[in-house]
């Protein structure tokens, strides 16, 4: 069987370019695909689709509300539209359109949220997107997906377009290590266990999957066996997987490039509270805005690097042991 993980990680690949290529590939197999942009196609690389299929590309200008509404019109007439702009703009400026027509109206529109998390690092907090997952996850009927690398994107994008219903997915702007191998076969809504362990579970999404795996290696050298789970679909959440990990490992750490409020950490907390409470540590942005700077430096400064995950894991383990002693 082909390995699910690439070991060692493959050389970094530009996620935007990977997205442009994935769009073109999908455009070839799906004549009903339409790509819309709010004039950022050279940012998110949807220009690659425009170059190949100019008749199926619409630029509405700097008008994110119209972007979503025009996509809704396409969806209502049997097309599969992918609307493109920065992730934070879908979750803020165009949110009413998203709520009324995608969530409530179930228009079959796919929202591609570019420059997610801190990845638009130099542009600063106005452009970084640290609460999009919380906002989108709160909307009924919306599917919320975070592909971790180009392999995940290639596997998940066709699934998102095949399903009949609205989807929000977010993409990193920068170069990301290739984490997954040939054997990675994700299914929307089902978490993927990447590494087994009995002491605790690290649940990660997006570009934080790679540092979570690094953290697991580091913990192993300290004698701690951490399970690692990739939660590429935040909604619907694979609550069975969360409950099983709580049951079998007794402590959880969530890792996301997002606020610790309402995103992956929030979703897992809700699932644990409902099914099987266990100590939970959330690695993410700690309810604050960040700043401009190099991407890797920002991730480090705001607590999103492998050592932060290790530290959170140690805290979670201590809490688990305290609980066991109390019992």
């Amino acid at each position: 069987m082909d390995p699910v993980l690439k070991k060692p990680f493959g050389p970094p690949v530009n996620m935007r370019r990977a997205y442009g290529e994935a769009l073109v590939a999908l455009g070839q197999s799906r004549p009903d695909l339409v790509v819309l942009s709010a004039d950022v196609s050279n940012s998110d690389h949807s220009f690659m689709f425009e170059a190949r299929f100019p008749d199926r590309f619409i630029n509405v200008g700097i008008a994110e509300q119209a972007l979503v509404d025009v996509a809704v019109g396409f969806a209502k007439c049997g097309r599969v539209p992918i609307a493109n702009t920065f992730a934070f703009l879908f979750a803020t400026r165009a949110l009413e359109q998203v709520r009324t027509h995608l969530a409530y109206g179930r228009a079959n529109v796919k929202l591609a949220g570019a420059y997610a998390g801190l990845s638009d690092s130099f542009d600063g907090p106005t452009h970084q997107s640290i609460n999009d997952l919380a906002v989108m996850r709160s909307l009924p009927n919306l599917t919320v997906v975070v592909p971790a690398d180009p392999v995940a994107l290639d596997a998940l994008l066709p699934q998102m377009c095949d399903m009949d219903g609205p989807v929000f997915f977010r993409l990193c702007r920068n170069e990301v290590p290739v984490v997954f191998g040939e054997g990675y076969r994700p299914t929307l809504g089902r978490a993927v266990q990447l590494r087994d362990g009995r002491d605790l579970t690290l649940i990660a999404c997006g570009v934080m999957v790679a540092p979570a795996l690094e953290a697991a290696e580091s913990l192993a050298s300290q004698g701690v066996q951490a399970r690692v789970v990739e939660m590429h679909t935040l909604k619907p959440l694979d609550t069975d997987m969360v409950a099983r990990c709580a049951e079998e490992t007794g402590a959880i750490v969530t890792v996301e490039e997002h606020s610790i409020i309402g995103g992956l950490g929030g979703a897992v907390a809700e699932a644990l509270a409902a099914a099987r409470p266990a100590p939970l540590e959330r690695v993410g942005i700690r309810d604050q805005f960040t700043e401009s700077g190099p991407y890797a430096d920002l991730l480090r400064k705001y607590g999103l690097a492998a050592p932060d995950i290790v530290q959170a894991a140690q805290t979670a383990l201590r809490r688990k042991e305290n609980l066991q002693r109390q019992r």
Partner: protein
Amino acid sequence: MPNNIAPATVYPYGPRHTPAMIADLSRRAFEYRLQVLDMVYERQSGHLGGSFSAAEILTALYFHHLRVNPQDPAWPERDRLLFSKGHACPMLYTVLAHRGFFPVEELRTFRALDSRLQGHPEPQKTPGVEIPAGPLGHGVAIACGMALAAAMKKASYRVYVVLGDGELNAGVIWEGALVAAKYRLDAVKVILDCNGVQQTGSTAAVMPTEPLADKWKAFGWHVLECHGHNMAQVLDALDAADELHGRPVVIIARTTKGKGVSFMENDCVWHGTPPNADQYRAARAELLEGANRWTLC
């Protein structure tokens, strides 16, 4: 509550508007107002003013101009009617019911628990409704997507949008207007129910949008104007809009908010206030009189 509305005749699409047809549709616009009055009075909730101003526009569209099939509401080749001023849905529901999309008796369930007739339009519940509306401003941009989709597959359906003039305060209307002009979407036909009143006052006082014709022209649209309560003019404007090509079309229909009930006309109080028993009786008498004027024609 008595509702002696005659079975609805649908007049074939085309430019021939006989005096009898005009009189019949004009009378029915008043009968539909009566029905709306009953719905809102019974539930003590709903929007009368904007429903009354749209009566002739919706009657003309659904009983003459639109190519729709109540037996197959999802017919792919149908004309689309996007009712962007969603709060006025009592009139939309009434016209849809009489056009045969669902039983007329169901109108009494408007805004009741378990009803298919929500407080604002919901296409998954109500046959014939195309889009959710209520939050204002969606119609034009969604119409653009529909018209672009039609152009891509060489379909010939038209996309009508009924807009309120208060709705023009919303920026997304103008985003959509720019998109429609850029892509020369002549399948998009907007009917602006220009009643001059919004929730807290006149449109002129709340947010001046005149000169409307100049604005739409400057945005690259064909502009037509008509008296929105004169059935002959509404029908003629809809026909004229079909003959305009290369650009989207807006018909500025000058209307009166609360049309047909003297004490409701042009008063923003009647945007969303239900009548009490006395007001209901008085309104009913005036609307009956309005309908009867056309019966005598």
